């Protein structure tokens, strides 16, 4: 990496590099970024329990909000984009829940092909597990949707800490609470 004014210059095709190009003059850089992030954001909102159309609208809102940061140059291009963008996405999800609670009864399998590209048989266990995940409180649910080791996502505890505005040890606590709540819920459904 090069050094520019004491900061590391992001790699050109990295997320932050594309944001730097976008903030510079290239608006096609943003379109490339939007293409790259669309499926990941869609999967995130689906994992939070939003239906297909709501998830699509929320993806667009997240990307518009990211685009709008150029007006005030609010993203530091020396930082990673993922925590910044998932923070935006999380706030939009919370705002959407405030207006209208999610519908955990939305059949996951019906919409799954858009995410996986291939329809697969859904087991009763997976359906019950998702129902239990969707009953978690917001912070625990977001944790499970994001965590690449203990949940359904792709991020580390440090990245999740940034998104949830918590210290990493608090994220570990959150992880334990989520597991306890899922276990109790699954016991309630007859899984021993």
């Amino acid at each position: 990496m090069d050094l520019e004014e004491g900061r590391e210059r992001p790699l050109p095709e990295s997320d932050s590099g594309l944001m730097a190009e976008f903030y510079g003059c290239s608006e096609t850089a943003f379109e490339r970024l939007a293409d790259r992030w669309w499926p990941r954001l869609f999967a995130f909102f689906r994992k939070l329990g939003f239906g297909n159309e709501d998830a699509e609208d929320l993806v667009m809102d997240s990307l518009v909000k990211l685009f709008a940061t150029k007006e005030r140059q609010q993203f530091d291009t020396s930082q990673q984009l993922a925590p910044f963008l998932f923070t935006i996405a999380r706030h939009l999800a919370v705002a959407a829940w405030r207006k209208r609670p999610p519908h955990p009864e939305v059949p996951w399998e019906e919409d799954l092909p858009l995410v996986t590209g291939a329809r697969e048989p859904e087991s009763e266990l997976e359906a019950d597990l998702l129902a239990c995940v969707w009953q978690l409180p917001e912070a625990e649910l977001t944790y499970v949707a994001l965590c690449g080791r203990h949940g359904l996502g792709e991020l580390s505890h440090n990245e999740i800490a940034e998104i949830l505005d918590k210290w990493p040890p608090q994220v570990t606590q959150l992880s334990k609470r989520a597991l306890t709540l899922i276990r109790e819920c699954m016991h309630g459904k007859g899984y021993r």
Partner: protein
Amino acid sequence: MDDKAIYRALGGLRNRITPPGSGDPLRTPACLTYSRARVLALDPAGSTAAESAHAAECRRCGHLLRSFDRQLPHLSIWTLMRRQLDLLRPAEADRVQYHLGSGHCRECTARAERLAGVPLTRLQLPALLVPPHPAMARAAVPEPEVLVRGEHGDLEADLVRDGDELCLEVRTRNPAHRHQLVGYAFASGTGEALVEGYLVLGPDAEEWLAAHELIDPERFRAAAPDGSAALEVAVLPPACLSAEEWRRVRTAAPGPEAAEEVRATWREFCRTQLVVGSLSEDALETVRSIYTSL
């Protein structure tokens, strides 16, 4: 079901629903790009007939335009005033160029036109402004001290330090400013408003009209640790405020604990705006909401 089994099941789901590939599956070749949707949200009249027809039919593009319209920030009233006075710093000038120059924002262009000629009182604050910690302040500054005083046209402003408190007083003898909205902002060197607020001028002693505001020194200390800020004060034409600024006016309105004369002054301001009725419907809704809370 033990923890390992739960993690195993979550892992299975995670692997199954990991999104492959890339791209926006809703986009067709006729769809708007993000940058074009932004420009059309800022200047709807710039849309071609084909774009309008497509956006009316396409769920993706219709939502994109509404989302930009709802979420794009507009220029602050202070930026518009500084632009008028040719006081923009380079970074701020770039933002203005992006929003007004390449974005052709109709709303901010109209706001800027309405602001023409509105005087801005601008005071450069001394570095000693940042109040010391309370214990030091009590020992070192026993009496209230005017830190900075300025006037422009018929508007005067004092910033007073009293122990560990900062108080802003804005006053005028011009009766035309009775029950008018005054804005203030402590602006950083790059023009960013660090602390800002809204007051309404009401009757004071000896035919003065005045408004006072206690400013939390902790908030100020956090925002401008080196004290390098300028204080900007202006009587603001309400029709020049953006939706975001109206939300801040709503927050600045006095609560039930405020003195009755302050609440009465705000009531008069609201009543005037509701009678004149020259504001947008959203702004009038905010004014109604403030009025009923008073």
